[in-house]
């Protein structure tokens, strides 16, 4: 049983670190701030969440598991809010989309400010 949890924790750690690396690469590879935000928010959250889940699987005691799960829930709650706020303020202030983007559905609502 402990062997199974150890292997699961190892796989989760590898997956979480992989997603964090993918998110950091997406910060460099994507053309504009909005797609970079899409990479960093989703893949970064998934990366740290998977590593925290690996810690919760690996550590057997209740206190660590509870705190790790609380951290996951908190991070899942706050990351979309901060990404949405940052994207909205960047769009309203006038940071443009990439040249290759084909549709800007929020252009009419730019007067929402």
């Amino acid at each position, binding site marked *: 049983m*402990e*062997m199974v949890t*150890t292997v699961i*924790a*190892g796989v989760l*750690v*590898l997956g*979480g*670190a*992989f997603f*964090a*690396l993918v*998110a*950091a*690469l997406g*910060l*460099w590879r994507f*053309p*504009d*701030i909005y797609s*970079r*935000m899409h990479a*960093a928010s989703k893949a*970064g*959250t998934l*990366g*740290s969440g998977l*590593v*925290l889940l*690996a*810690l919760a699987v*690996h*550590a057997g005691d209740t206190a*660590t598991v509870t*705190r*790790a799960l609380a*951290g996951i829930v*908190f*991070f899942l709650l*706050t*990351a979309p*809010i*901060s990404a949405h*706020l*940052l994207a*909205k*303020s*960047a769009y*309203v*202030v*006038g*940071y*443009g*989309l*990439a*040249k290759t983007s084909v549709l800007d559905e929020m*252009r009419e609502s*730019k*007067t929402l*400010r």
Partner: protein
Amino acid sequence: MSSSAAFLDLAVQIALAMLSASFLLSVFKVIHGPTLPDRVLALDMLVAVAIGFIAVLGIKTGYTLYLDVAIALGLVGFLATVAFARFILARGQIETRRDTRTPPLITAEAHALTPDAVTSRIDLDPPAPGPRATPPGKSGTGGHEPGDNAPPKGKPGEGRR
């Protein structure tokens, strides 16, 4: 038994290497990032990578006291991102200001996007005088004193609405 422990050890080493690489990439993005939202986003990414580091070190050493630090770090990172977003919003429109001095790779895109931004600003401008132009009109329709007291009477009327 020991083979699974060896696998976990190897996985932790590889994960530490990958997290270090992503940490360095995020730091260089903070330094390099051509616009302010890029830097804020890279800071947010740094917080996420730091939480991952704390969790991996908790697995590696069994020392899970830093997990509370990770939760507090997530809270601080969230609040910092929200505050930076409000700051970007409060700083105002960008293209009339220092954005002409951004690196050439982004200014090409910015030049391609300048007509949209300009038209949007032209679209933005008439509604902005519009509400300001209406309170004197309302006060004019109220019309008790068309003299200098008209703007102060227009503003309370606006305030009640």
